[in-house]
């Protein structure tokens, strides 16, 4: 067995050990350091292995196989994995950020009665996620896809005694199911198409991407559309994004790992992996771009009016995922992955910082809800480590030049603009305008959150229980992620420097050997250096402008600022505060009619038709069983007669028909 198999097997092994020991042994459950350490180790070692592969990468993807699952004449499904440029990068993000969040959880989950279960689910999640990104065929990928969904469901409902949290888990489950259905349909189409095109049915990525997807537009269109619908479920885009904000009911490390850094980006990963199909479905690409832009805008608007620190971050995640989809829509797959990476750094850092803040606020016992930014303020004084890391991550997400988010976001906007300019597609200008506006909004609301939390007036009364800085297991991951949030962008310097040759991630890594298709953007050529400088300047200006404006505004007005905005925007602000009533809309359009139809129309239908059918099948079976069993009279003579009758019928058929 290949040593690389350990990448996949160790997290599973960790989950199994923690699960079994935790289940049988009371004393093991109390060994927090042991559980946490073991869980972390089972993610850190795969990280090391992936890093070794990454550093020793020599142009050729590494394949390894754990075992053949189904081998039958025409079908061969194996647990096979590929380490190529794309999966290595994703693997580094997942296991790297995953390790840090495991360490953080050791401190964060301290004293929780489900401590061992938490690490069990986290390890299981890493296992499923690695299957998703490293799998060399869609069957294994789908196994991971379902697996991360299940883990996410368990972890959102981790504190399941709380009805609201259990309901949030349900919501995530249902929304994801819709996406999974599309995923399955896409897989069937792909399976069918490979069989028809080559005579060899296959779900291997290498076989799928080896086909000529330009030949027949119908399957290409449907596959692309269905994969995108699947991605809207997992990666929280319109119309299925509604589960992600509610998913914040889970413990904060979960929000950071699953609902910000890794799982929600799996849709983007999959579309990048299948980029070869998408570039031949231009209509779908434009659709992806516009949906991404609308999601980004909608989520950013909602984020401005939220007061729950985790809700703001959740909507900002939806918004940033929207940016990634804009990049995908423009065919800039490498750019989307670049943003996945930088986003993983700064958003994980922001979430973990918020967790640290919540931890501290809950400790004061002075506030009812430890997540409400209106009852915080001036935490800089008490929590220096959390403050500094949160601050740099805020600057990164806002897109302040030289911070990581700036490079990736600027590249997205640049690629979208170039697509409009070169391809002449009007729609991409629209996407660009929305994107630029959303970038300004992002700078504004993130600065607001930062300011209301860490600066301004102290709005809580601690009664001696001052908020305190979190333990080292929590602050060390914050520092590491904060550092990466600052410098992580330098792997993708803008094209304008040395014709993109300094852009390591696109030119030297992802796009270098065609792992991620570059064709679309390459064909379009490059915009001139002048335009590119102008775009960079513009991005910088809107980011700095947004931060500067928010900073001054909230320094001046503190919490009153919200009231001023509210008065300015009037009705719109109410809509933003109430999340544009999307949940209510879904309730009204989808759920209510079902309930009402259920009580009125379907009730009748259900009672007389469906029940009739179900009970009918039940009673028919029982009736048939009752009739059939009479054949079994218990008399030997009758049995012999049955045999002879059988002989007669059989021979009659053979002779005369």
């Amino acid at each position: 067995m290949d040593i690389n198999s350990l990448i996949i097997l160790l997290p599973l092994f960790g989950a199994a050990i923690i699960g079994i020991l935790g289940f049988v042994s009371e004393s093991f459950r109390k060994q927090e350091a042991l559980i946490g350490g073991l869980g972390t180790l089972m993610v850190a070692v795969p990280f090391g292995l992936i890093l070794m592969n990454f550093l020793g990468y020599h142009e050729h993807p590494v394949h390894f196989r754990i075992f053949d699952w189904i081998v039958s004449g025409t079908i061969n499904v194996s647990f096979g994995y590929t380490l190529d440029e794309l999966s290595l990068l994703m693997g580094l993000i997942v296991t790297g950020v995953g390790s840090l969040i495991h360490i953080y959880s050791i401190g964060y989950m301290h004293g929780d009665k489900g401590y061992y279960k938490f690490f069990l689910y986290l390890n299981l999640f890493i296992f499923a996620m690695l299957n998703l990104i490293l799998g060399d065929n869609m069957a294994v990928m789908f196994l991971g896809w379902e697996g991360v969904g299940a883990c996410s469901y368990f972890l959102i409902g981790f504190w399941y005694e709380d009805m609201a949290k259990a309901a949030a888990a349900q919501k995530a489950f249902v929304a994801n199911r819709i996406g999974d259905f599309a995923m399955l349909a896409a897989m069937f189409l792909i399976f069918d198409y490979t069989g028809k095109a080559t005579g060899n049915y296959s779900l291997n990525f290498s076989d799928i991407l080896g086909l000529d997807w330009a030949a027949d537009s119908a399957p290409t269109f449907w596959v692309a559309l269905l994969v995108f619908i699947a991605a809207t479920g997992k990666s929280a885009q319109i119309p299925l994004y509604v589960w992600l904000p509610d998913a914040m009911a889970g413990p904060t490390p979960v929000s950071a790992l699953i609902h910000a850094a890794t799982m929600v980006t799996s849709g983007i990963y999959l579309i990048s992996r299948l980029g070869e199909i998408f570039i031949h479905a231009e209509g779908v690409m434009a659709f992806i771009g516009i949906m991404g832009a609308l999601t980004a805008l909608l989520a950013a608007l909602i984020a401005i009016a939220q007061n729950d620190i985790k809700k703001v971050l959740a909507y900002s995640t939806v918004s940033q995922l929207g940016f990634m989809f804009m990049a995908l829509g423009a065919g800039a797959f490498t750019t989307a992955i670049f943003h996945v990476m930088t986003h993983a750094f700064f958003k994980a850092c922001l979430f973990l910082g918020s967790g640290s803040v919540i931890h501290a606020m809950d400790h004061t016992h002075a506030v009812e809800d430890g997540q409400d930014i209106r009852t915080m303020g001036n935490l800089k004084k008490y929590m220096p480590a959390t403050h500094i890391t949160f601050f740099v991550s805020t600057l990164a997400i806002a897109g302040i030049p030289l911070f990581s988010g700036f490079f990736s976001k600027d590249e997205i906007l640049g690629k979208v603009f170039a697509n409009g300019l070169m391809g002449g597609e009007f729609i991409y200008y629209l996407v660009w305008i929305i994107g630029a506006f959303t970038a300004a909004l992002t700078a504004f609301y993130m600065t607001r959150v930062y300011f209301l939390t860490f600066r301004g007036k102290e709005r809580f009364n601690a009664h001696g229980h001052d908020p305190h800085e979190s333990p080292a297991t929590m602050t060390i991951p914050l520092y590491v992620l904060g550092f990466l949030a600052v410098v992580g962008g330098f792997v993708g310097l803008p094209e304008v420097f040395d014709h993109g040759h300094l852009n390591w991630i696109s030119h030297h890594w992802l796009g270098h050997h065609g792992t991620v298709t570059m064709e679309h953007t390459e064909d379009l050529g490059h915009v001139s250096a002048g335009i590119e400088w102008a775009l960079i300047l513009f991005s910088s200006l809107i980011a700095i402008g947004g931060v500067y404006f928010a900073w001054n505004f909230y320094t001046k007005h503190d919490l009153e600022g919200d009231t001023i905005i509210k008065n300015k925007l009037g009705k719109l602000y109410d809509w933003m505060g109430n999340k544009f009533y999307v949940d209510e809309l879904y309730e009204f359009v989808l759920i209510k009619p079902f309930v009402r139809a259920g009580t009125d129309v379907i009730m009748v239908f259900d009672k007389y038709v469906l029940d009739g059918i179900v009970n009918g099948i039940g009673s028919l079976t029982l009736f048939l069983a009752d009739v059939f069993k009479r054949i079994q009279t218990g008399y030997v003579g009758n049995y012999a007669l049955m045999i002879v009758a059988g002989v007669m019928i059989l021979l009659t058929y053979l002779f005369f028909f």
Partner: protein
Amino acid sequence: MEIFEPNLYLYLSVSAVMFAIGTLGVLTRRNAIVIFMCVELMLNAVNLTLVTFSRFLDDAAGSMLVFFVMCVAAAEAVVGLAIIIALFRNKRDIDVNNFNLFKW
């Protein structure tokens, strides 16, 4: 159908009739021993068919099979009679219609 000589059909018909009589016996009789005898009759009908073919094909395999069938019939008789005796001991009755503890 010139692969068989005309005489063959006489032998085969006798054997088929014997087989049918045996089958009917199994269906109509209720005494376990008589039923078993009817089964023996069926096996002997088959033996007749086998020796007939063996003779007309001029091939020994058929006759050989007859001996195996006879052995098997003997073995079955041993086991069958033992079972019937056990039944008779427990119930003083070997009418098969009186044995239906199991049904449905």
